[in-house]
């Protein structure tokens, strides 16, 4: 069973070791730091591809376990879901590293920044490869530890305040989570994640306890997933530099929370048991409230990054909505949104960073006419924003389509109304910047123009990653039917989880009950 566990360890170390080395570099050692950064990111990317080939072509299994306490192991394992999340993290890390090198040019404390940045990615990949709940908890807490320095990176009073709030929320969430995991381990032992869950054998009178533990787990993971009412650290954490907002707050941290919720629902409790306990409906309602609340707040946010942050609050809950529908099609919608939202949101944050770094634009009303000055960035922004709204054939449409089908399948037709309302709200907060950017005319100078006169509209290390992720967001929608698309992959995961040999069988069964 433990074949090639070293691969997983290597993947972790490929960001951990460069990260540790980077801490001890002097500020001026630009070339070496860049080499370590990009080398680590590229190596991780290649290793993940090798892992994918090993799993899917050669049918190998990878796992590694280290004993922690009697009966309790630290387990790293690669299943389809972990590969999905790990691939997403590795790809976006590579892109974001390039972006961050460009973004932080000449700013102080870069060694510290990239050191912690690499630690964060290691923790995220650790979360992805966690083979049981305890391992997940361990890496989840490490992520807290490694993100805080990035939130306070600028060292201003405002960033320290944001850091304090971030810590208060995440440490509290971590403590609740620890309590829940210990409790669950006492009840059911430290089992590996199992498709369909591993709690069936518990007697029926454990129901209330299981519900309590489920609530604690949701609270613990919900903090990072920014579920209502645990979301308010996220908009404040936007004081961090743009690459942090982009990678961590679009992918790593919030997704870690959502990923945890998916794991608990699918591989610890199992959808069936969760539905029997009646915990999926409250979770569904909470997700819906968060979706609507985040969108409404986004409409009223003037600061571009704030708007994107509230949009994240809203969009991450689509993932939770999808799995909480407790049916295969909804699960496809939720899981595929894990990838789609990540790619689209990182595009938007890159664009926001480009605007801020090139022209000093921070507020939505300052975006007038930016389309003429920075057409490439604005195109990327438009593509990603339209995707978020759910315009076909972009990636977001695929997610919402499956979520809607899933809602119908689960017999909760009213959820589709929520989806429609949310899409309208999305349009309401994403269309103004798009329209202003393309169709308004700028009068007077930009707030703070820094990058002028070059052949490109901004530094190539900022523009290239932005275009790359925008292209990905486009491709994931257009080419959703290819076998390498996230959709295909997610379908595969869900088929395994629900025991169907093909996802469409679920639809046929649902039509003829």
């Amino acid at each position, binding site marked *: 069973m433990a074949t090639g566990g070293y691969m997983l360890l290597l993947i972790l170390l490929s960001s951990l070791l460069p990260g540790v080395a980077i801490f001890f570099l002097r500020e001026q050692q630009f070339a070496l730091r860049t080499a370590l950064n990009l080398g680590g990111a590229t190596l991780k990317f290649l290793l993940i591809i090798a892992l994918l080939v090993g799993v899917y072509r050669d049918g190998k299994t990878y796992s590694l376990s280290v004993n922690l*306490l009697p009966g309790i192991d630290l387990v790293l394992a690669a299943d389809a879901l972990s590969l999905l999340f790990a691939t997403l993290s590795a790809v976006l890390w590579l892109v974001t590293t390039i972006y961050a090198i460009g973004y932080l040019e000449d700013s102080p404390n870069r060694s510290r920044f990239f050191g912690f940045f690499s630690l964060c990615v290691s923790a995220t990949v650790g979360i992805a490869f966690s083979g049981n709940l305890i391992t997940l908890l361990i890496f989840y*807490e490490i992520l807290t530890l490694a993100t805080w320095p990035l939130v306070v990176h600028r060292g201003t009073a405002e960033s320290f305040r944001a*850091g304090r709030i971030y810590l208060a929320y995440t440490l509290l969430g971590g403590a609740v989570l620890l309590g829940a995991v210990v409790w669950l381990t006492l009840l059911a032992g430290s089992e590996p994640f199992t498709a369909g869950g591993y709690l069936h054998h518990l007697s029926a009178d454990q129901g209330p306890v299981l519900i309590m533990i489920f609530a604690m787990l949701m609270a613990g993971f919900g903090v990072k997933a920014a579920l209502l009412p645990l979301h308010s650290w996220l908009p404040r954490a936007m004081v961090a530099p743009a690459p942090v907002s982009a990678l961590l707050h679009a992918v790593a941290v919030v997704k870690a929370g959502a990923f945890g919720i998916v794991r608990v629902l699918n591989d610890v409790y199992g959808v069936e048991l969760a539905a029997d306990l009646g915990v999926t409906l409250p979770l569904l309602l909470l997700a819906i409230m968060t979706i609507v609340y985040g969108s409404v707040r986004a409409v009223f946010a003037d600061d571009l990054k704030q708007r994107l942050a509230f949009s994240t609050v809203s969009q991450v809950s689509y993932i939770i909505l999808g799995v909480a529908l407790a049916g295969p099609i909804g699960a496809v919608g939720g899981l595929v949104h894990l990838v789609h939202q990540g790619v689209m949101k990182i595009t938007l944050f890159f664009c926001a960073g480009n605007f801020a770094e090139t022209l000093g634009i921070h507020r939505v009303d300052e975006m007038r006419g930016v389309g003429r000055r920075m057409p490439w960035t604005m195109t990327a922004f438009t593509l990603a924003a339209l995707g978020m709204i759910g315009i076909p054939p972009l990636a977001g449409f695929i997610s919402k389509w499956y979520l809607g089908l899933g809602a119908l399948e689960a017999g909760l037709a009213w959820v589709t109304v929520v989806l429609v309302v949310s899409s309208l709200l999305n349009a309401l907060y994403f269309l103004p910047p798009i329209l202003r950017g393309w169709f308004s005319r700028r009068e007077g100078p930009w707030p703070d123009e820094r990058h002028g006169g070059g052949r490109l509209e901004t530094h190539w290390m900022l523009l290239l990653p932005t275009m790359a992720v925008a292209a990905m967001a486009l491709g994931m929608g257009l080419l959703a039917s290819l076998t390498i698309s996230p959709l295909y992959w997610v379908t595969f995961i869900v088929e395994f989880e629900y025991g169907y040999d093909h996802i469409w069988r679920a639809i046929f069964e649902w039509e003829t009950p």
Partner: protein
Amino acid sequence: MPWMDVMADMALAPWLVILPLAGALLAGLWPAAARWWGLLTALLTLVMALLLALQVHAHGPMILDLGGWAPPLGITLVADGLASLMLLMTAVVGLAISLHALGYLAGEGRGHWFWILWLWLWAAMNALYLSGDVFNLYVTLELVVLASVALVALAGGAAPLVAAMRYLLVSLLGSMAYLMGVALLYGAYGVLGLQALGAQVALSAAPMLAAVLMTVGLLAKSALFPLHVWLPPAHGSAPAPVSAALSALVVKVSFYLILRLWLTVFPALPLSGLDVLMGVLAAGAVLWGGLMALRAPRLKQVVAYSTVAQVGYLFLLFPFLRAHPEGWKAVVFFAVAHGVAKAAVFLAAGTLQRAAGHDRLADLGAVMRGRLKTSFALGIAGAGLVGLPFTGGFIAKWLLVQTALEAGLWIWALVVLGGGLLAGAYVFRLLGPAFEPGPADRGRPLPAVMEWVPLALALLTIGLGFAGTPALSLLARTLAGGGG
């Protein structure tokens, strides 16, 4: 393994006392070479402690009558799982303290006094862990106190002297109460050996009174809230290696003694409310120490108040004692994890203090940025205090929460988790200055060893995160008393 069989016959235990004592003597005879004697002693003692732990793990508890004299006239050394784990922790932390002191005390004229007293303290602690009877425990406890008081006073100046005096008086009061308990026990049963007493003690007035006197006396020494007032000034104003020794090791000594007594001598006595009282005091300590650590303006004060808070966890022992047969092991693992992490934090604090020339938290940012290795040691060991994953502190926290939930005492689980949050708050407060904008400054030049030792010890707390299973299996080889 054949070498294990040879080892089984070796009497290692006496060497753990003889070596540091000889080291202290040699350091006194050759003051100029005191540091090298100290270092040699520390290395040899660590080797012995390691061998003893392996021996006990392989062959079970070792009992040795010194000079062939049987009790009550002779002295019996008992090396079981609990004792050898504490000896090993002391030896590891002791070696780190010795190495750090090489740099910290370099160029100080009266440095040899540190070595004499420190090695003496070490010998006394080892003797205490190995003692098999209640009177020997008293003598060794007094030796520990006298050595620690002298070490606190070593810094000179009014504040350390007053702190040392206060510490001495509190300790003597505790010792007297303990000794009265010994007299009562001997009066009632006519024996002094821990095992022999445990076999006889039954529910009656004399042992109850003795248990109360001894426990309360030792509580003052362990600085359990609200008897903690002497601790922060004593630990905060001593030289860093001394602070580390006091906070990481000496506090554990009186805790060990309480644990031994209740595990071996008094298992037949009911706790009758003592468990709840202790639990409440423990919660008070966790809360009060945590809040004070959040407010203290100086780095070493914060760490000292952190000790007040963490001592609270140790006394969750009482709620666990009767409710869960394995509960004490969780507490011992916590003591070990805390010992290593706290020593690392204090040594790192000492390095920063030496580099900056002060330890005012608000003005430490530049030196923290300049001394990355030390800041990392502070961060990693701090994570150990909070109980964040991959550190021994996490495993300890896990075990404590697991014990509490298993025994159905969820309120103490809440205390542990809540205390972790407070610890998180003050540890991140310690690290905050490093992230303020400003230049990096390495401060005064320091020997490299002062940077590497805290880091090594901090990395060891990560190692402890994977040592849960072996430590528990070593603890399983502990002599319990009474019926057990």
